[in-house]
């Protein structure tokens, strides 16, 4: 008998449930999804930028960068990670009002590493694409096509030294949500 079978035999809980498990918690939506989202995003150390039009040029201009160091994954296909100091514009599929998290899926358009190696991650999010809580968020993710995806809530951070918050642990030093 394999290790697997021995473990499962010890567990003795092979019967499937009568019906799939479903959460029955009633969720309370924040009064104003947009305000709740931006408050949470900024609270997590991220910046918010309001733009009417989110072209690469407009974003670079607003952030005071040259377009050279900015890579726009919405339109450019990236196979290799460029040198240090790179800024990356990525598409945010939808946002979560209660905690400022944004669902991001690199798909085949850019390498997974871009999201952590880029010095500055710029997430473009349509402000009408907000859900109240994680309960609605997980029902929105399409797992059937997913390879790797994440909820990102601001720049990477740590408080491992005496509980002092430091922005920029391993991932992005800066994180901006561009709301359009």
């Amino acid at each position, binding site marked *: 008998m394999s290790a697997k079978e021995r473990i499962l035999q*010890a567990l003795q809980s092979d019967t499937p449930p009568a019906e799939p498990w479903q959460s029955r918690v009633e969720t309370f939506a924040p009064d104003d999804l947009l305000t709740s989202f931006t408050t949470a995003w900024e609270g997590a150390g991220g910046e918010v930028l309001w733009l009417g039009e989110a072209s690469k040029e407009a974003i670079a201009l607003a952030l005071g960068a040259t377009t050279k160091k900015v890579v726009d994954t919405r339109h450019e296909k990236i196979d290799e990670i460029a040198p240090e100091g790179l800024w990356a514009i990525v598409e945010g599929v939808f946002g979560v009002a209660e905690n400022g998290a944004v669902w991001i899926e690199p798909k085949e358009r850019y390498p997974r590493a871009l999201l952590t190696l880029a010095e500055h991650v710029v997430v473009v999010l349509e402000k009408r694409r907000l859900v109240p809580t994680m*309960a609605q968020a997980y029902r929105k993710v399409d797992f059937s096509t997913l390879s790797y995806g994440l909820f990102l*809530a601001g720049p990477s951070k740590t408080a491992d030294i005496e509980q002092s918050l430091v922005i920029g642990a391993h991932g992005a030093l800066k994180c901006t949500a561009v709301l359009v």
Partner: protein
Amino acid sequence: MSGAHNHARAAEAFTADSKRAHWHDKALWFVRQKRDKAVASVPEWEALRAEAEALKAHTRAHLGYYLRLFEERAKANGIEVYWAEDAEAHNQIVHRLLQEHGARRVVKSKSMLTEECGLNPYLQARGIEVVDTDLGERIVQLASQHPSHIVLPAIHLKKEDVARIFAKHLGTAPENHDPAYLTRAAREHLRQKFLEADAAITGVNFALAEEGAVTVCTNEGNADLGTALPNLHIACMGLEKVVPSAEALGVLTRLLARSATGQAITTYTSHFRRPKPGGRLCVVIVDNGRSGLLKEEFAQATACLRCGACMNTCPVYRRSGGHSYGYVVPGPIGSVLASARDTARYGSLAFACTLCASCDTVCPAKIDLHELLLKSRRRVIEQKPFHAKRTGLRMAAFVLRRPRLYRFLTALWRRLEGVVPKRWLYHPKNAWGRERQMPKIAQTPFRARYAKRRRA
């Protein structure tokens, strides 16, 4: 009590430095307060906790089914699944996978399971460099220590300690203990390790059966960066980490970070459903005593989300430090797990508890921690090393059941109290008297005074 761990004895070094112990206490209470603030912003908080409890009970009842489903779906997604009955098997599997891959340098993100299995020393003994990439874990790794907290591994160290450790290993300025400076130095040092790594090892916060995917939560992004570069990702999980589906995360991710650090969510909540192009994603499912635990009265302890809230609130943990528990998971949940695993060895942990039940009220999965600790005590008291305590209580019961004997003995003590030398009274055998002063006996007993008042 040879071989047995003694919590009170182990805490002595920590409590001897009362200034530091006080600081530790305050630092953790601060985290507890942040948790309270985050919790207050969610009106349905208590309903969420109840749902998490029900969800975990449901999963336990069908655990075998969900594990099979997880394996089937994960394999269909191109994930390799391995099963390990114990720590040794786990370490062997991980080592074999690394060997197949020719990996010499490994980056690891936080995983209490690999700590439990002693994976680092196992791999290091076989010539593989393992670098813990969580900042707190890297600090304790460089200091040749173990994490003292499951979420805040270096909470027992002050920034001056970190400055000393980094000065020695990373060449930072020894007198500069600014957390931002030290964090930046660690970032540079670890960035190099990330770029050189041949393989990445991560823990697993949740394994989604329906979707055949694993979820890893971090604030630093170390799991995402670590797994994004090399072509081999090994994810190690205890078998209790499986949940029915992503639907469950709609409950659990709302509870986890708020309970842990008071954040609304961790910065990175990442889902791995397929290996990256050209890479391998291997999941190792570990039992290591869990199936046994599930059959016992401690089954509920497997509902733990590893948020650490019970530690932050525990008056004993805050004042004794995580290392005093001598087990991979400290605090209330650690005491339950350790004493269930090896009662003879970890029995004293069941008594490192005031039964205040503060842990019960903060636990996001509503584990009845203080009830479980009481059960542990009952079990412990049956064990030999604790017979002395039991005998003492029996003697007390014997006397208290016999009023005349009690009167005689108290009268005797009234005469002897002033005569018995202190060194007899506070003899090392009298554990009770080590931190306490014996109360003075009243010269007139209560009974006599009561009788006098009634007469008056």
